[in-house]
């Protein structure tokens, strides 16, 4: 494809206008910014392509991936992967100034792309990179941005994006719309949307975008990157099994029961906020609204009441098992399986039962 749509003037129309301004109707298509850093695509980008596909289908428009990065073969390879994950086409901008993420050159290039091709929706991951970039791009384009969303839908009446996010400390949800401004922008939390199954047979177009920037004109320089010590860090959002403990575990020593079960299952340890505040485990293990969003195959919650701020971080798990001595604890309203009982005795029994299963499995091999 070479034809470039005529860019409508990105001027917002009056807020109360009933029909979408004609200029804005020229904005077409759903875009997902694919976050690529140091040789890796952030998994949230694939999750967004899965969700973007649904939005594009509802609107009957194309889904595009946008990839910015240094001029090496790897970035190009990720265009194919983006297409396998649902994109119809990929906008690709490669340039040495885009080597490491920096706000200024990324904002310039993404803003240029939007002004040239005029998408109606632009989605980014609610990561440190995505939030940094989205805030600058939305302000430069003078359009609306909804941060940290947990749900997206198309309003069939006006083809607008309805973006849902937690509000007031997570006790309520609110849906936000962007009226007569385009593109409609949103950042979405990692692990809220399911990862689509890649289809290696899908094909699509790649549109290269020339970047006219020079390093000398960019004020901020990256001196160094200090990677986290991954050995010490929990990778909760991508764990297959999580065993979490809450205030009901009573004391730090009792958390050993959580760790024992986690070890037998090859699981990560998670926790509710009071546990973090008490210092029983590190802050990177907090699940929930102000912690991590997780979606493992199995989530075991022991001594956790199931407050909404915890729930929003874990209720997309495939299977939830709750252990609580209070039969009326809210967690039993959304867990799949429950044991009403004392976690101090149930947890060791579970560890034992899984150990026996594993022994049998090993012998069968």
């Amino acid at each position: 494809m070479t034809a470039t749509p005529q860019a409508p003037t990105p001027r917002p129309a009056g807020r109360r206008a009933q029909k979408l301004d004609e200029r804005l109707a020229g904005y077409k298509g759903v875009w997902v910014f694919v976050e690529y850093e140091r040789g890796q695509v952030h998994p949230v980008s694939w999750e967004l392509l899965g969700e973007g596909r649904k939005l594009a289908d509802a609107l009957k428009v194309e889904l595009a991936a946008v990839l910015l990065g240094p001029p090496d073969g790897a970035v190009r390879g990720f265009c194919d992967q983006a297409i396998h994950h649902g994109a119809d086409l990929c906008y690709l901008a490669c340039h040495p100034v885009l080597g490491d993420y920096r706000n200024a050159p990324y904002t310039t290039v993404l803003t240029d792309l939007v002004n040239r091709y005029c998408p109606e929706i632009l989605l980014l991951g609610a990561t440190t990179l995505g939030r940094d970039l989205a805030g600058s791009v939305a302000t430069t384009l003078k359009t609306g941005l909804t941060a940290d969303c947990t749900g997206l839908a198309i309003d069939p009446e006006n083809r607008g994006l309805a973006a849902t996010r937690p509000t007031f400390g997570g006790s309520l949800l609110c849906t936000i719309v962007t009226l007569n401004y385009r593109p409609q922008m949103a950042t979405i939390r990692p692990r809220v949307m399911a990862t689509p199954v890649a289809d290696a047979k899908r094909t699509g177009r790649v549109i290269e975008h020339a970047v006219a920037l020079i390093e000398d004109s960019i004020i901020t320089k990256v001196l160094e990157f200090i990677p986290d010590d991954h050995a010490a860090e929990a990778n909760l959002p991508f764990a297959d099994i999580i065993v979490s403990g809450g205030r009901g575990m009573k004391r730090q020593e009792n958390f050993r029961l959580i760790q024992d079960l986690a070890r037998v299952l090859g699981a990560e340890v998670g926790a509710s906020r009071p546990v973090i505040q008490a210092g029983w485990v590190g802050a990177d293990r907090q699940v929930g609204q102000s912690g991590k969003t997780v979606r493992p195959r199995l989530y075991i919650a022991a001594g956790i009441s199931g407050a909404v701020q915890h729930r929003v971080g874990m209720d997309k798990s495939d299977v939830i098992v709750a252990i609580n001595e209070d039969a009326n604890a809210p967690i039993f309203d959304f867990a799949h399986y429950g044991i009403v009982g004392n976690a101090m005795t149930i947890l060791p029994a579970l560890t034992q039962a899984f150990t026996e299963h594993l022994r049998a499995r090993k012998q069968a091999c």
Partner: protein
Amino acid sequence: MHILVCIKQVPDSAQIRVHPVTNTIMRQGVPAIVNPYDLYALEEALRLKDRYRARVTALCMGPPQAEAALRKALAFGADEAILLTDRVFAGADTLATSYALSAAIRQVHQDLPVDLVFAGKQTIDGDTAQVGPGIAARLDMQLLTYVSKIVSLDLAAREIVVHRRSEGGVQVLKTRMPALITVLEGINEMRFASLADMFRAERHRLTTWNKDDAHIEDVTKVGLKGSPTAVSKVFAPTPTNRRAEIIETQSGQPVDLAATLVAKLLARHPDVALAINPSLELDGRSS
């Protein structure tokens, strides 16, 4: 050196309750506090003040009551405080908020050039983390978000080196002032205000600016009118129809409950069975 800190007054969200029947927010009696993340920004500015004899100006947009947040900033050691308050600012989303704040900062800058602007990582009511990047874009300042450490500051060269948290690690960035920095929680520990400072703060005459003082001529860019986004509905999370299948056995003993649960899990959820991947050689010690 002149540092400007953006602070917001917010309702203490830990104390907000939702009416169980009407699903409305019960604001009554909920105390207003300084956005906790902004205190880290203020403290970081005050540390630079102590080291480089900088001047610190606190800026807050909000209703007249937000004055309390600014008095707090003064008590901690800010030199000046500006309350940006006008009816036309009401109902602003982040785009309109960054417009008004950046207009005010431009005005402050005319009197005394601003070298650094500090903002919190995010607010606890808006929770968007967008206002900081928005102000930087409007004032054409270098933007450094999620800063976990200020490594060095060279006043002569006007250079600053920081640690910026990013996915999987820390970026060490060097930039030139003027710059806007949003700081991460835990970057510092807030000082205690001295009694003398608290008295000084009480006596201090705050600067109060309306839209004209901030030289905002185009009122379609502020408040509700200047906000591209609108809340279309507020609702409680839908209760799932699910109700946990409660595992019960005749004996009610933990061993039997556990065995029953494990058997059901493994039989009904092959994915779960496959995901079990013990990190410990099974030598019996784990039981």
